[in-house]
């Protein structure tokens, strides 16, 4: 971090009258494809959804839409099911993100270890990204098989004497939420792992050598060198993953459908049911806007954090 700080000072100190106009335009030029794509394919549909959220009678109706202002928001806000979905989503996403971080970091450190030969390492790397290469519907199908009352997981638990009866993982109101969270953890950590692997490559060996000369043990090396170096990646990943996990739909829909009795109802399944099962597309749009607001709240923190890190 000190590096970039000094670098910034030196660039800032550069005389640059000739550069000034170019330097003003250059960043936008580099960003132009991004801006174009995001405005056309992102902001327009989002604006449409925002407009829907202020109307009544959209999409699945013959009646002309009517403007009802914040009516949909009020309705959603006082809907107990919405609040339950919100709570479930926060639990599901929070636990997932935390576990993703821990697993991803542990596996990356293990795979980065100098104590293991190159070939076994390569093999392990491939095994470790396995959960990542399957589409969400297949992951749902696979875990439904595994967690079936007559599935392998129960078979192993009973054989090992860890359980007496067949456990109804996905159909019990107590276990369904932990079960889908576990599945999401399993399917999501490789993304962190790969990013951390790349990040670990970027940490200079000199830093570790210097630390060792100062007499630091491996725990201290991790705490004072590895973690701070990975911090920007950790923050970005955690924020993005949180936002993505709140959108996780297929996995939940195809394992529990939000049941039993809404115990695994997430904002995503709640929104889907509003839009396509109840035909309340306007209310679904309002929910989407609320989710957007929550995500933006997280994003503002992130951007502020980035700015602090840069300055």
């Amino acid at each position: 971090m000190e590096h970039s700080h000094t670098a910034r000072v030196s660039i800032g100190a550069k005389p640059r009258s000739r550069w000034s106009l170019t330097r003003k335009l250059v960043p936008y030029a580099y960003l132009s494809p991004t801006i174009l794509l995001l405005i056309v394919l992102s902001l327009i549909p989002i604006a449409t959804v925002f407009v829907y959220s202020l109307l009544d009678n959209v999409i699945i109706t013959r009646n002309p839409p009517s403007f009802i202002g914040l009516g949909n928001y009020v309705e959603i806000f006082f809907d107990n099911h919405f609040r339950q979905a919100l709570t479930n989503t926060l639990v599901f996403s929070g636990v997932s993100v935390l576990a993703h971080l821990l697993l991803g970091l542990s596996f990356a450190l293990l795979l980065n270890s100098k104590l293991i030969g190159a070939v076994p390492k390569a093999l392990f790397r491939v095994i470790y990204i396995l959960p990542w290469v399957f589409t969400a519907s297949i992951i749902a199908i696979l875990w439904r098989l595994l967690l079936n009352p007559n599935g392998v997981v129960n078979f192993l638990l009973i054989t090992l004497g860890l359980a007496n009866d067949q456990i109804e993982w996905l159909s019990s109101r107590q276990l369904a939420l932990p079960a889908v969270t576990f599945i999401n953890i399993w399917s999501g950590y490789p993304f962190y792992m790969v990013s951390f692997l790349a990040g670990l490559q970027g940490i200079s060996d000199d830093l570790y050598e210097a630390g060792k000369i100062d007499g630091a043990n491996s725990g201290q090396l991790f705490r004072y060198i590895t973690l701070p170096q990975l911090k920007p990646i950790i923050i970005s990943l955690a924020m993005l993953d949180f936002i993505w996990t709140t959108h996780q739909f297929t996995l939940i829909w195809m394992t529990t459908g939000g049941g039993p009795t809404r115990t695994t109802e997430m904002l995503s399944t709640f929104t889907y049911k509003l839009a396509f099962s109840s035909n309340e597309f306007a209310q679904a749009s309002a929910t989407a806007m609320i989710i957007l607001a929550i995500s933006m709240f997280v994003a503002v923190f992130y951007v502020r954090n980035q700015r602090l890190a840069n300055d």
Partner: protein
Amino acid sequence: MTKATTHSAGKGIATSLTVVGLVLGALFAGLPVLWLFAASFKSNTRIFAYPPQLIDDSFSLAAYSTVLTNPEQLRYFFNSYLVSILVTLFTLLVGILAGYSFSRYDFRFKNLLNLIIIGVQSVPPITLMIPYFGLIVTLGLYNSYWALILTYMVFTLPYAIIMMTGYFNTLPRELDEAVMIDGGSSFTILWRVLVPISLPGIVSVGVYTFMLAWNEFLFALTLTKTNDMRTVPIGIQLLMGQHSFEWNQMMAMSVLGSLPVLLLFLLFQRYFIAGMSAGSIKG
């Protein structure tokens, strides 16, 4: 006992702990997938047999031959590869340019743009589906590869930009200056210096982008219509019928889909270990 032996004994313990950790992790990651793999060789009924067996007498390659001899399903594979590769290339290209801009320049609206980039992926895709669908139809892209490629870029770009910005931020600005003093342009700095150094980061963003494009279902389903445009996740969903599922074929299709992806990863992982990292350059 000399110092050296203590050291190597400690190292031995550390090595065994690492191996144990690696094996446990591999079981966690691999066992469910092993089950998926085994199921692809079973008959549909035996997949549900209790007590479960990894391999049973229903072992057959029938599911694979069904998938591999069906030209429609082969087309799904082709489509998925084409779309995923193009999405990866374009995302990296656009993402690197944007990340460079965010990392190396200060400009007005920087924070706002940053927020927008994060914000655009904060709306649940389910609700975006219908307005998005309408937009794609209006643009005349419905049922084309471009519909999928551009759509996926909207989802992959934010991550690519954030990550590339992050990686570029870790690279010292003295590198830029050295090139500038030699008379190089900012473009030279980016492509000749920063990009080669950032290869590990680029590869991991590329892998992520590829996976996302490879596994996406909702938009692939909505924005395409004919069989010659469908991708593998839809092909898998088509095996989930109204009254019954073709379990073993779904599994076989997933295995076939994952093999080339794993191969790609195997090839590219040398970039993670290549030592072409920011750290070694710094030193």
